[in-house]
């Protein structure tokens, strides 16, 4: 019984670290970093104990209780949150350690770690939420920690702008999310997941025709946080933050929170009256394809990975939309490992290249950075979906899900998988092989041990997570809903996809080979990108991200700015000017008019007095 209370330590250790650093130790860089890393490690150890000791439990403390609104600060531990806890704290700890090396010498070292700890707390809060309102609270807190970390180098205009953009885009999504929560609460009378689930189990039609709208509104939250179309524009800009931040927040954990949330509320989406799921599936699939296309023509190593993250998140969202939260979560977990690995690898490259991020200025880094290169390759192979790397199994689960439910989306996902292999091969070939393309690439040196050891630490699960039996653990959560999740662990899992649904598995392998072959033919030994000359305007559009940023800023100018200008004008000239000064003027005019009566002439006063008396007499005597 007492062991459960470790849960609170897991949740609050990072907050305590953030507060301690902010209030006390911020002048001592080393100590601050140590506190932050220790808090993350404690959270990881606690999560591990909980994971091994419990299947499910729930703790709750009443946070707000007014009238019909009851909100707990809850700790809901089950297969879903248990797995997510391990991912967040595990990957988080590795990245904390890595940051200790990467951020060395930054003038705001302590502030960085305080923000990281604040982020860990907020993220863990989302994961363990037992109700929608708590989730929203931490959802917002995650948003602000992301804002603080993207804008960590706030003196750089690009970083300051990117952080603002990210926060506002997230707020637009949260607007829908909040309305969704209000709606669900209005319809079902509670925000607690277990009560909601129980209510829907007894009466699946309880939400009636509003189910679709409510589901889509909740999905808005995921659209913002997981950067799905049409709010995807903030994530690539978020790469302005330090690279460990990109790895932790904008690849492995926070952006996956949207997918996690969809899995958590899957029972609300998956009701008979709701047609939200197909919409979700198409938005996810569309985002996956769009982002993969854009990634093909990016030159900044972090941006390529950012668009790849978008694309993979799209695949996960699509899996949820196809009725498979199991495969989505599975892919979320493996993706967290290998994408964090890829980002940290990219960070190591950037570190070695003295903050050069253009892949066309790299080349032959495989010899200069052996550890980084090997681990990066592992990550890339996992992302492209090669057995026995973990990404193959989770991606196959999603493909199988698509194969069973929607042929068009299945084909779209396969095409996206081909693009994925293509742009990752392009990145690896250009950056790590071929001749060195700049003097920086010739002189690059491998990063110190504190940065390479997290790479190795993350490379292990990137390889083996596929055979660790994650789907089996998840199937206890989603039960029958988790179709396509395969059960066995260990050696039996190695070849399971080929027997379970062979076509998607073999197709996945085929597109991998085609992708590598295509990339090799284009990029092996290339000095510059041959695609723009071949594809013409389309390559240009891909490079320019299909002009979404331009379209949005034009839209904002057209609507928001216009309204704001009009309102400010109205406020100044009509409300403040005409009405107030007008009233002022009238009063003054009346005053001037009345002053005419104040002649100082006694006869006039007497006359007026007489009139007054006469009128009063008339009123008192006659008019009554």
């Amino acid at each position, binding site marked *: 019984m007492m062991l459960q209370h470790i849960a609170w330590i897991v949740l609050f250790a990072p907050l305590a670290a953030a507060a301690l650093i902010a209030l006390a130790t911020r002048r001592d860089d080393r100590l601050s970093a140590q506190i932050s890393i220790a808090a993350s490690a404690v959270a990881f150890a606690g999560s591990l104990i909980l994971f091994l000791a419990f299947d499910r439990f729930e703790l709750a403390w*009443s946070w707000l209780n007014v*009238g*019909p*609104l009851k909100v707990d600060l809850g700790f809901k531990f089950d297969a879903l949150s248990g797995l997510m806890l391990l991912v967040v704290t595990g990957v988080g700890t590795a990245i904390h350690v890595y940051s200790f090396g990467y951020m060395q010498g930054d003038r705001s070292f302590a502030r960085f770690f305080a923000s990281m700890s604040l982020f860990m707390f907020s993220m863990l809060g989302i994961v363990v939420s037992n109700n929608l309102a708590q989730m929203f609270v931490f959802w917002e807190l995650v948003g*602000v920690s992301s804002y603080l970390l993207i804008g960590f180098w706030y003196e750089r205009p690009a970083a300051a702008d990117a952080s603002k953009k990210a926060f506002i885009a997230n707020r637009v999504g949260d607007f829908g999310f*909040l309305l969704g929560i*209000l709606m669900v609460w209005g319809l079902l009378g509670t925000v607690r997941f277990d009560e909601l689930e129980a209510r829907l189990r007894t009466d699946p039609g309880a939400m009636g025709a*509003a189910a679709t709208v409510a589901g889509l509104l909740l999905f808005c939250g995921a659209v913002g946080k997981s950067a799905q179309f049409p709010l995807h524009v903030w994530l690539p800009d978020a790469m302005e933050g330090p690279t460990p931040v990109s790895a932790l927040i904008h690849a492995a954990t926070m952006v996956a929170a949207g997918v996690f949330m969809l899995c958590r509320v899957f029972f609300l989406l998956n009701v008979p009256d709701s047609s939200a799921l197909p919409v979700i599936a198409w938005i996810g699939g569309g985002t996956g394809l769009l982002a993969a296309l854009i990634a093909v023509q990016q030159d900044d190593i972090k941006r390529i990975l950012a668009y790849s993250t978008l694309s993979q998140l799209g695949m996960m969202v699509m899996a949820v939309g196809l009725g498979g939260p199991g495969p989505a979560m599975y892919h979320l977990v493996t993706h967290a490992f290998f994408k964090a690995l890829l980002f940290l690898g990219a960070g190591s490259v950037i570190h070695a290249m003295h903050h050069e991020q253009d892949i066309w200025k790299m080349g032959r880094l495989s010899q200069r950075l052996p550890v980084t290169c090997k681990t990066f390759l592992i990550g890339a192979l996992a992302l492209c979906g090669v057995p026995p790397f973990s990404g193959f199994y989770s991606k196959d689960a999603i493909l199988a899900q698509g194969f069973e439910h929607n042929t068009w989306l299945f084909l779209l996902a396969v095409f996206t998988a081909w693009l994925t292999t293509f742009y990752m091969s392009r990145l690896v070939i250009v950056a790590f092989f071929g001749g060195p393309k700049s003097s920086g690439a010739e002189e690059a040196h491998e990063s110190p041990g504190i940065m390479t050891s997290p790479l190795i630490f993350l490379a292990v699960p990137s390889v083996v997570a596929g055979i660790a039996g994650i789907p089996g653990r998840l199937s206890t959560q989603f039960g029958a809903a988790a179709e396509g999740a395969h059960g066995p662990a260990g050696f039996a899992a190695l070849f399971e996809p080929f027997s379970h649904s062979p076509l998607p598995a073999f197709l996945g392998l085929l597109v991998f080979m085609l992708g590598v072959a295509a990339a090799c033919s284009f990029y092996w030994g290339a000095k510059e990108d041959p695609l723009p000359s071949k594809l013409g305007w389309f390559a240009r559009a891909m490079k320019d991200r299909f002009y979404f940023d331009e379209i949005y800023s034009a839209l904002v100018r057209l609507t928001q700015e216009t309204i704001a200008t009009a309102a400010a004008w109205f406020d100044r000239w009509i409300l403040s000017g005409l009405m107030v000064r007008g009233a002022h003027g009238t009063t003054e005019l009346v005053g001037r008019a009345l002053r005419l009566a104040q002649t100082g002439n006694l006869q006039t006063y007497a006359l007026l007095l007489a009139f007054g008396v006469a009128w009063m007499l008339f009123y008192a005597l006659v008019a009554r």
Partner: protein
Amino acid sequence: MSPLTLIILLPLLAAVGVAFVPRSFRLLIRFTALLSTFVPMIVSLALFVMFDTAQGGVQFGQKADWVPSLGIQFYVGVDGINVCLVLLATIVAFAAACVSWEIQQREKEYYILLLLMAGGIMGAFASLDLFLFYFFHELALVPTFIMIGVWGRGADKNYATFKITLYLSLGALIALIGLIALYQNSGLRTFDMIELARQLKERPLSTSTQQFIFPWLMFGFGILVSLWPFHTWAPLGYGAAPTAVSMLHAGVLKKFGLYGLIRVALPMLPEGAASWVHWLVALSLGNIIYCGFVAMRQKDLNLLIGNSSVAHMGFAFLGIASFNVLGVTGAVVVMVAHGLLAALSFGLTGYLYQTAKTLEMDRLGGLLRGMPFVGTVSIMAMMAGCGLPGFANFVGEAMVFFGIWKVYPMATVAACWGALVIGAVYMLRAVRVVWHGASAPIGDAGTVAWVDAPHWWRRLPYLLLLSFLILFGAIPRLLTDKIQPEVARLLPVQKQLPVPSLAVKSSPSESPKPFSPAPLAAVAVSDSIFQHPGEARHRTERNDP
């Protein structure tokens, strides 16, 4: 003697005392001001902690006859609602006394007026007698005008003084007419608010009388709280006022109107409220949406904060308009949260003004590096201002949204947009321009030495306000457990709430309109799926003890 009497009298007596101190004893004057606001803060904190939530009702009361022939009493006391507001008032008063170091001229007169204002504010929120309540408000209001006129700043000072005086006097006058009408029509010959509410609940006024009186109170109190479109005095006035006056007025005194609506108008005129409440909803959206847009276009940081403060009042109005326990409790939480936040924001801009001699945002930039403390606290205040969880404002606003959702769903959509998106747009813009980015030293002032509140006593008022903001944001039950039972007692036992079915059909893509007729239409429609089991339960809890 009730501790509340002490809280009220201490600043007032100190004001009298300061009048007899020679003006060269500057330290003594300042120290008196600090002490006579610090002690009430400690006392009210003790009251807040010692307040017996389980028992509820009026506590720490004191009653004495004043004008028996009219039924006017000196009656002070706190229940769950105003115990929070008195705490707010004393905290802000102390913080305001702390930041008054900026005043260099005519300190003696300044501190006399400041203490008068503080005493009046505390009196207004501790009073349970309608006459006393109004009297203390006026007592606080008059020094406000003088202080803006004498110690104010900026080119618009005179116009702002003139405008704020006109508006607030007018608002107070209109409210007074409503209060007198209420007193006359009740026929009870008492100004005792508790007694009035109890009697009028048993024997309510006729519907037509209520419908006649309510708008006087609604618009009168509304003008005092900068209800749209009577808000234009607020940003201008706060921009021109000395820091402490902005803090006290925007933070606390302004809440008088909201408090009056909750304490007087809603419980004593429930049917009048019911027939006017959709106006309140529509106008509050004017506050939230319109003033939000206006705030986006401000070039002066103080005008931006002022407009956002006006926008925040919309949430309180909206909560009151919800007419249910959740929404009205939310409105009270918004009052407390906004009081702390407004005081904090104006305190910080005041500090910035002292350093930079300007608040034009184009001339500021990248200040965070030079002023890490003030900058960090400012950014936190701005985050609180756009409704970030962890600060008390979020709790209040969220409760208002949950409260109003079942009654006016379309208005909720618009208000959520205002809170989450519009608020974020202008607040983050201010952060971006003022604090982030490369530092741009001010042109004609040359290189300004950015002094970052070097001593702990300079930091104290900001830290104090911020920590209460976070405390109530993290543990909102400190407030809500006290407020909720009283609100439940004040609110009339209603007929079945008319519940709209519009929520079900509302489309997410529909853009929010500041004033949409939809919520009005929605009231007529009723739908049982919105009925919540909890609703019936707390309705029975509302009975008087």
